[in-house]
């Protein structure tokens, strides 16, 4: 147990901090859920990639730095503290990328990973379907092999596809065995969004932005070389990705520490220093963010030691999503009647509050996560 930084780690932190201080745009970029914002974020990702900061934990050969998880956390702390833009390429770099490294072919690794790291390919998730939300196994979108066996012919509809409005590619699971049900007979397929037969319909969300979309597939032809992992084994591949998402990668602790830092700044500015109630509440949310950071360091140390990241990811997902909502609720309480204003200096808090409300819902609702914890961690009997 040694929670102090090594000289190397400190040097890594300083290098990241220095680079970010020099390159982070002074003005925030427009939302990456707009055309111009998406382009601006792609450009920023390119800048990161040139300096090998876009995927620090990836092997050097794919554009990363081969940094261990501790360094990845250090980078995330510096990244979010510097006020750098959101990661428009997150779906690829944090979710699909690691999955490709785990189950992809060498050809796939060469074809996708470097382009992903340089944000030349920006990826959309395509998991859910209108009837497959919490019940993700009831996938209906189909893919059948063409007569010559060279292509998948994909038909159906996906929804809640994040980044899909402007992304280049999407990944998802499709039913390739028409006679199969539930988790069986599904295959993980990578599809260019400019393919003939693909229609993307943006979904306006609570804040008016279109971070999600529906994707309609009408006999879309995809070369079988875009199959990730075994045919019929898509569920397992998807679970690896989803577990990783719920786990460390989607929400590194640094995001919440920055948010709580801002909350504390707000409290120091507008809060009543004698109001112990609010003082205790702010302290409580600080402790939660700090607890999440410590829990994550414990987790990544396990991963460095070779442990696999299992159902604890469900514990993480509930914890960070509820922490995030609480943090923003407190900020709005501090703002009083300013809390409804979306054009003022506090706009960020209102947007952040609305965004935080998606946390307990997406990547598997917190109700589903509690079931998983009960079944797999507490070993309670499955519901029938």
């Amino acid at each position: 147990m040694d929670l102090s930084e090594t000289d190397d780690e400190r040097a890594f932190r300083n290098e990241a901090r220095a680079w970010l201080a020099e390159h982070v745009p002074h003005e925030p970029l427009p939302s990456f859920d707009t055309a111009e914002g998406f382009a601006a974020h792609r450009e920023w990702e390119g800048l990161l990639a040139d300096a090998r900061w876009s995927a620090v934990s990836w092997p050097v050969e794919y554009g990363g730095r081969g940094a261990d998880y501790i360094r990845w956390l250090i980078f995330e702390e510096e990244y979010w503290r510097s006020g750098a833009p959101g990661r428009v390429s997150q779906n690829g770099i944090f979710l699909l990328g690691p999955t490709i490294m785990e189950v992809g072919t060498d050809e796939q690794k060469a074809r996708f990973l470097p382009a992903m790291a340089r944000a030349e390919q920006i990826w959309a998730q395509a998991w859910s379907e209108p009837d497959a939300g919490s019940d993700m196994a009831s996938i209906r979108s189909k893919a059948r092999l063409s007569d010559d066996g060279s292509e998948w012919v994909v038909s159906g509809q996906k929804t809640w596809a994040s980044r899909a409005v402007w992304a280049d590619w999407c990944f998802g699971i499709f039913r390739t065995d028409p006679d199969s049900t539930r988790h069986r007979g599904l295959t993980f397929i990578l599809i260019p969004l400019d393919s003939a037969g693909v229609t993307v319909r943006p979904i306006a969300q609570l804040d008016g932005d279109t971070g999600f979309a529906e994707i309609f597939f009408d006999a879309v032809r995809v070369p079988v070389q875009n199959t990730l992992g075994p045919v019929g084994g898509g569920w397992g591949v998807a679970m690896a990705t989803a577990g990783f998402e719920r786990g460390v990668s989607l929400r590194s602790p640094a995001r919440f520490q920055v948010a709580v830092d801002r909350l504390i700044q707000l409290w120091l500015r507008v809060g009543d220093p004698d109001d112990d109630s609010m003082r205790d509440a702010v302290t409580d949310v600080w402790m939660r963010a700090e607890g999440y950071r410590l829990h994550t360091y414990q987790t990544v140390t396990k991963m460095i030691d070779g442990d696999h990241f299992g159902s604890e990811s469900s514990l993480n997902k509930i914890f960070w999503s509820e922490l995030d909502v609480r943090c923003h609720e407190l900020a709005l309480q501090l703002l009083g009647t300013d809390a409804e204003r979306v054009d003022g200096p506090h706009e960020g808090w209102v947007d952040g509050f609305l965004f935080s409300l998606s946390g307990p819902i997406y990547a598997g609702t917190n109700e589903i996560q509690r079931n998983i914890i009960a079944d797999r961690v507490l070993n309670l009997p499955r519901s029938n």
Partner: protein
Amino acid sequence: MRFAFDPGQLAMAAGLRVMLDREFTPAALRAVWDSGTGTDAALWARLADMGVFGVVASDADGGSGATMVDAVLLCEALGHAAVPGPVLETMTIAATALTGTPLAAGVAAGTTVVTAALGGERYVAHRHADIVLIPDHGGVRAIDLATVTVAPVESLDRGRLLATVTDAEHVGRHVPTDIELLRDIGALATAAYLVGLSNRMLAIAGDYARDRRQFGQPIGSFQAVKHLMADALLQVEFARPAIYRAAWSISVDHEQRARDVSMAKALANDAAQKAARSALQVHGAIGYTWECDLHLYMKKAWALIPAHGTTSHHRRRVADAVLGVRPTFTH
């Protein structure tokens, strides 16, 4: 002692509720958002026809001279439909503050639209109102919005056309009145509105939970969903009597009026916060979309929770009343 409303009071509220269910649908509310007017002129006229604006106005002003006990059920029904515009301010605060003035008749008839900023709010709730009431020594000042500088402010509830008002120092008419009473009336009316709104959000969530199927059954059959909604309903059901009692305390000018009103607003705020969270969580991703009507109601709740006194402001007023003196039963 009798904790119930008269048949007449119940009938008027039921009539309003029926009219709103039929005529002010979610689509109509959405239209107000898109129009950018902040109100629905036809609806406003219908409310005037039903005498909503005149309920607490005096007979002399052309009102029916009733009390907040009569008004509270109407405020709840208005909240259930999330009626936009400064309807609460006009029917309760203005009708009380402006009685006996030349403006009173127009207020009671609903032809004079009044908004108010009597507490700490930085903003006026409706920039297209005719009159705004602001604090003035020994009462309020009634200012014609056309005579001051009005700068738009954007609310997350697009049905609310907030504004800042400046250059208001030397204009308007002074009206002597009890501003503390006006603040309590505004807080109580808002609390009742929030409880109606909370019931609406739970009703929308209930419809969805009966309808939406996952794992081969309606999601409303899962205990997690049942308990999420039951806990929210619990808060709403126990906030409501506190609101009715506060309305009575105002109507009899009870010595504990401040405590009772603040208890009502504090409980209503918590209930609305909880109802919004639960309703959204029951919906899942659908509830997070602009197409789903739920957000129209949630955003109204989030806007009104801090309005007319935040939860902590009102909880502190209760604490001062309860912990400042030796506690005894209240009858």
